[in-house]
C-alpha cells in the first residue's frame, strides 16, 4: 500500500503538486544569461559522457567515475567495472528515479533529482537577494569544450561555488563547491562528452525479475528496526518527501538520519540515543538554517532546515504524534 502512496507522491511531484514542485522560476534578478540558458537547456539536452565526482566529508575525499546518458529529463548513470559501485544502474524517467543494487538485488524507487542543482541555486538567490552575487568570466576548457565560468559569491566576496557552462549547448560541464574557508568540498567534471549519441528508450528502464522493490520508507523501516529506533516518518502529504536514511556512529553515539526534499529546501531529521543540548544545536547552526529539537526517554530528536520555526514545529508535532511503529 505504501508503495502505491509513494508512487502517487512521485506523480504529484512530476505534475507540479504545490507541496513538492521545484521552484526553478527564473524570474529572479541577477541571474546571468549563460546560467538562464543552461537552466533552460537542462530540460532537453541529449548527450553521453564520463564524469569525475568528488566529495569531501570530514577528513576524507572520495572520488568516483560515472557514465552519464541524458535525454531531456531522462537519464541513466552507470559505473566502470573497477568501481566500488560497479553493476549499479540509476535511471530517471522524469517522474521516478530507480536505483538498481546488484549485491542486494534491489531496485530502490526514489523521487527524481534532476532539478536539484539549479533549483537550489535559484532558491538561494531568491532567499538572499543581493546577498548572493554571480559573476561571469571565461572558464577553462572542460571535456574539450571552452566554457563560461559563473562564480557564486557571498556578500563578503567569498566564492561559494563555480559553475563551468558550455555556452553552445548550455551543458553544465563542471561544478565546484567550497566551504566557508575556501576548501573545495565537492566537484564534478566531465572528462568526455558526446552531444550526438545514439539513444533508445530502453536505456531509461530497469527491468529485473525477482528484484525487490524498496521505497525510502521501506529502507527506513529496515534501518530503524536494525538500530532499535521507533519508525517515525513524515508523510508525503506534509510536503516533505523522504529521499533516504542511514544510521551513523557519531562521537561514539548511535544516530539515525532521515533526509527529506521539500519545495523550499532540504530537511533533515535525526534521532539520537543521547541527550543533546538545544542551545548547542542552535549555536552550531550559526543562523544558516533553523533547528527544532525535543527529548523523550533519554533520546533526542532534531529537525534541521532552511524554514521558519513554525514549519519545523508543524513537522515536529507530526513526528511526536506518531505511535512507534504506527506510521505508514
Amino acid at each position: 500500500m505504501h508503495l502505491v502512496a509513494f508512487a502517487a507522491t512521485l506523480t504529484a511531484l512530476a505534475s507540479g503538486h504545490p507541496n513538492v514542485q521545484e521552484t526553478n522560476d527564473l524570474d529572479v534578478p541577477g541571474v546571468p544569461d549563460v546560467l538562464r540558458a543552461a537552466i533552460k537547456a537542462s530540460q532537453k539536452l541529449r548527450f553521453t559522457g564520463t564524469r569525475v565526482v568528488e566529495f569531501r566529508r570530514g577528513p576524507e575525499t572520495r572520488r568516483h567515475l560515472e557514465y552519464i546518458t541524458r535525454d531531456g529529463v531522462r537519464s541513466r548513470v552507470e559505473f566502470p567495472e573497477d568501481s566500488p559501485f560497479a553493476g549499479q544502474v540509476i535511471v530517471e524517467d522524469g517522474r521516478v528515479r530507480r536505483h538498481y543494487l546488484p549485491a542486494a538485488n534491489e531496485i530502490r524507487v526514489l523521487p527524481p533529482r534532476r532539478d536539484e542543482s539549479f533549483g537550489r541555486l535559484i532558491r538561494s538567490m531568491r532567499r538572499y537577494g543581493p546577498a548572493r552575487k554571480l559573476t561571469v568570466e571565461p572558464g577553462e576548457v572542460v571535456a574539450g569544450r571552452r566554457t563560461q565560468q559563473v562564480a557564486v559569491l557571498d556578500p563578503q566576496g567569498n566564492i561559494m561555488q563555480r559553475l563551468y557552462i558550455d555556452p553552445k549547448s548550455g551543458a553544465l560541464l563542471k561544478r565546484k563547491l567550497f566551504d566557508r574557508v575556501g576548501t573545495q568540498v565537492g566537484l564534478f567534471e566531465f572528462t568526455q562528452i558526446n552531444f550526438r549519441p545514439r539513444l533508445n528508450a530502453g536505456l531509461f528502464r530497469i527491468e529485473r525479475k525477482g528484484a525487490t522493490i524498496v521505497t525510502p520508507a521501506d529502507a527506513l523501516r529496515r534501518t530503524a528496526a536494525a538500530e532499535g529506533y521507533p519508525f517515525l516518518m513524515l508523510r508525503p502529504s506534509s510536503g516533505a518527501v523522504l529521499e533516504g536514511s542511514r544510521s551513523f556512529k557519531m562521537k561514539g553515539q548511535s544516530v539515525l538520519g532521515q533526509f527529506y526534499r521539500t519545495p523550499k529546501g532540504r530537511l533533515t531529521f535525526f534521532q539520537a540515543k543521547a541527550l543533546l543540548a538545544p542551545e548547542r544545536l542552535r549555536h552550531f547552526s550559526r543562523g544558516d538554517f533553523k533547528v527544532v529539537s525535543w527529548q523523550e526517554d533519554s533520546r533526542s530528536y532534531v529537525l534541521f532546515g532552511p524554514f521558519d520555526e513554525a514549519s519545523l514545529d508543524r513537522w515536529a508535532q507530526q513526528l511526536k504524534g506518531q505511535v512507534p511503529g504506527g506510521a505508514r
Partner: protein
Amino acid sequence: MKDPKRLEMMNADERLNSEAQQAIRQTVRALPEETVSLAWRSALNERVLQEAQLSKRRQRLAWLLRPAVGLAMAGAMAFVVVMRTPETKPISIVRANTAAAGLEAALVSTHRETAMLTDVAGVGLNATEVEVLASDEVPPTDWSEADFDGF
C-alpha cells in the same frame, strides 16, 4: 578323632597357666594403686563451672548484640542509598551530556554537507550513497562468454 577348636582352647588354657604368665600376674598385682587427689578434682570442677558461665554470658551478649548489629548495618546501607541517590542523577545527566559533547556539531555538519553536496551529485550518487552503497562484492554477471559468441 578330636575337634580342632577344642584342642586349640585346651592349648590356650595351658599357655595361660604357664609359669611365665603366673610371674607377670604377680608383678602386676604388686604395683601400687594411684588415686586422683580431691583437690585436683575440685579445681577441675571449678574450672568447668567458670567456662560454662563464661559461655552463657557470651551467648546472652550475642543474643543482645546480633539484632543491634543488623540494625546498624541496615541503617548504614539506608544512609548510603539515601545519601548517594541525589548525587547519582546529576552524574548520569552530566555523563550523557559529556558523552554527547560534539554530537550537536556533528549533526549540524552532516545536515549542512548533505544539503550542499546533493548539488554536486545531480542525477548521480550523492555523498551519503557514496558512503553507504560502495558494494564490496558484486555478484557475477549472468552472462558468460558463450552467450556473446552469437554476436
